[in-house]
């Protein structure tokens, strides 16, 4: 995989609810560590833009959508478990 691929994320949050805030904080940490200068994060508040959630078929928040690189993946939760998250995002080899 090319090292120059830019990861594009879309994080659906419920205002500044606790889990959402935690998810945003965890995502930020992860990107700074594993994808420095290779990421774009778009944060969407479902209270403000419920239609976009519907368009992406998001029914729960917080929910992270990895748009690029494909395949598109959706992860729900506070994103606090780093290792499974890295696997889900394709940034780490599956544990043996």
């Amino acid at each position, binding site marked *: 995989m090319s090292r120059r691929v830019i990861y594009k994320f879309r994080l659906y949050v419920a*205002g500044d*609810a606790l889990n959402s805030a935690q998810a945003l904080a965890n995502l930020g940490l992860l990107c700074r560590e594993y994808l420095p200068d290779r990421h774009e994060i778009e944060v969407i508040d479902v209270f403000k833009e419920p239609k976009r959630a519907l368009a992406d078929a998001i029914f*729960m928040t917080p929910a992270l959508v990895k748009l690029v690189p494909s395949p598109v993946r959706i992860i729900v*939760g506070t994103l606090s478990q780093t290792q499974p998250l890295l696997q889900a995002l394709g940034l780490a080899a599956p544990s043996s």
Partner: protein
Amino acid sequence: MKPRKFPDSAEAREEISALIEMLHSTEQRLEELTAGEVDTVADRTGRTVLLRRAQEHLRYSEAAKQEAILNALPASIALLDAPGRIISVNESWRRFADANLLQSPLYGVGLNYLDMCDRASGDDAPEAGQAAAGIRSVLAGENIQFSLEYSCHSPGEQRWFLMTVTPLAANHPNGAVVMHVNITERKETENRIAYLNRVYVMLSSVNTLIVHAHDRDGLFREVCRIAVEAGGFRMSLIAIVDRSTAKIVPVASAGKDEKLMTAIKDVLSSSERASTTLLARAIRDKQVVVSNDSKNDPRVLFVKEYGESGVRSMAIFPLTVAEQAIGAFALYAGEIDFFHEEEMKLLTELTGDISFALDHISKQERLNYLAYYDDLTGLANRTLFLDRMTQYMRSADSNGHKLALFLIDLERFRNINDSLGQPAGDDLLRQVAEWLKSAVGDAGLLAHLDADHFAVVLPEIRQEGNVARLLEKKMQAFQVHPFHLHGSVLRISFKAGVAIYPDDGADADTLFKKAEAALKTAKERGSHYLFYTQKMTEALAGKLTLENQLHQALDGQEFVLHYQPKVNLAGGNVTSAEALIRWNDPRSGLVHPGRFIPVLEETGLIHEVGRWALHKAIEDYLRWRAAGLVAVRIAVNVSPLQLRHPDFIAEIKRAISIDEHAASGLELEITESLIMEDVKYSIASLQVIRDMGIRIAIDDFGTGFSSLSYLAKLPVDTLKIDRSFIIDMTTGPEGLALVSTIINLAHSLKLKVVAEGVETEEQWRLLRLLNCDEIQGFLFSKPLPVELFESSLLRLPAVL
């Protein structure tokens, strides 16, 4: 969209509760599934279904945030409900409560804040009352904000707070937020700025003053005034150390009431307590003394009085000139803790400026002194003396008298200076200055010009003779005065040059030069003194010699009486005689009275000589009587000085008391002008004399200005027509008519008439025609010595 209709039945209600139940369990299931990590769940249409937990969490987090914010604030905040009860407080309030007012475990929560304010007592009560009123007004919705600045001073420190009260909800009053902010720092900064400003204003005013100050007292007074008016001090005081008594004396003050000033003066004048004052301390230690809380300062003496005058702090600055503390400047502030580092720095600078000005003034005075005074003797120098001379000259001009300037040169001074040394010479000069001061009686009339030269001015002289006499007298006194030098006695003399204003010069400079010239000549000629005008020196010298000789004449009985007879015109016989004084000078023979009578009058010798003449005449008369001669009455002349002497009548009484017949042999001749000078006094005293049996004649009649009305009242017996009328009598009809009139007038007043100075037959003939009673003159006889008078005239048979 049509609103859905719910069936109003028990079945429907059941369905609803079943749905709620399901929703609840679904929610729980969802929680379990998402491990609590999910905030929202949406249905298929995208509608958000809020999870309760998330909602609550949101609420909690909001409250926590607000609390955190409140706790983070440095202000002490409490929420009050509508009746004023404290329902919530922040962290700062709790800390404040810990340290301060509310010792309850809940930091006052639950207590009624208004009650607490209402119950406040002591110094804080008025402010607590204002606070309560303000809170009530906000709780009642009358005000949307209330604020109050208040002080809360603890023993250790002064603190200031700002309380603000705002409603909990803007629309309907249901409580209030009370916030206290500690503004001590701001307040202190404000005060410091205000204090500093006051001190700055004062500093600049005083500095302006210093530039213009010329005298100490004015400077002190103004500095004190500025301290109070510009500096905003309650009081100010300047005290100076009196060098002679070593006591501290207040010399200027402002803002102090009389009672306090009196108390301070009392303490300073008492010897024991004076040293305990802060003023004394500042002066003694040459150190600033500060008392920033006078009320609680054991060093302050008048704690009560200062308290009553509103003094809360004070500072005393020593005034130092040439490293000597000459006094102190005290400032009293109405504020506790006024004197901080910055203020002290400025005020110390200010005191330094005042000290500088004092130094400057005293140097100026010293310069002035040196410019006008001689440092050695303390007498005026030439410059000041000339200035004074000019003033005396002006006064002499306007009063029409003369002025004399003496320049004095000490003899042998150079020798004394060389042999005993300059310090001894200086000492002698100081002693001479002292002697002159006491001799002249006024240091303002003296100057020390240089080395051994002094100057004296006599600002008012009437007769030059007096000047010479005075000078001789003083010179003699000076010569015998013992001056003490090195434990031994020294006598010295001086020479003097005299110049008279306006005769010798019209201005001080010229007069000075003339006096210097006279002094120089005196030294050359070896004279004791010389007047600038030679003639005057000579004339005065002659006069003084004469004076001395006259003294001797009196002692040596050199005076004699000559008698000139008065002759009856009808019978040709001698009726009486006029006694005329003569001086039989052993050196030059008989001296004419015109030469010495004025000197007798000037010197006052006339009294003694007059007394002598009176006694001598009585003695002669009584002798004639005893010897069986024709004892004629003797007329003695009375000089104005004698008549005016208060003892004159007693003198005559004494003279005639030696014999019962003495009075009948005596007549007094008094000039017309003298009688008329004070006619009422004359009438009275002449009456007394006449009552003793002594006759009185008016001498030189016609030369004065007799008032006819007084002439009739005068108690006199005889009228003597002045010789000038007798001379004029033969030169024209007017002269004759005049004498005729005088004789008729005298006769109508029942007075005897004597014509004086009758020298010719013609005069004698005319006087006889005019019915004159008696004549006196060379025609019959000149004045004769007593022996000759006796032998040639008194042995003739006389008819009285």
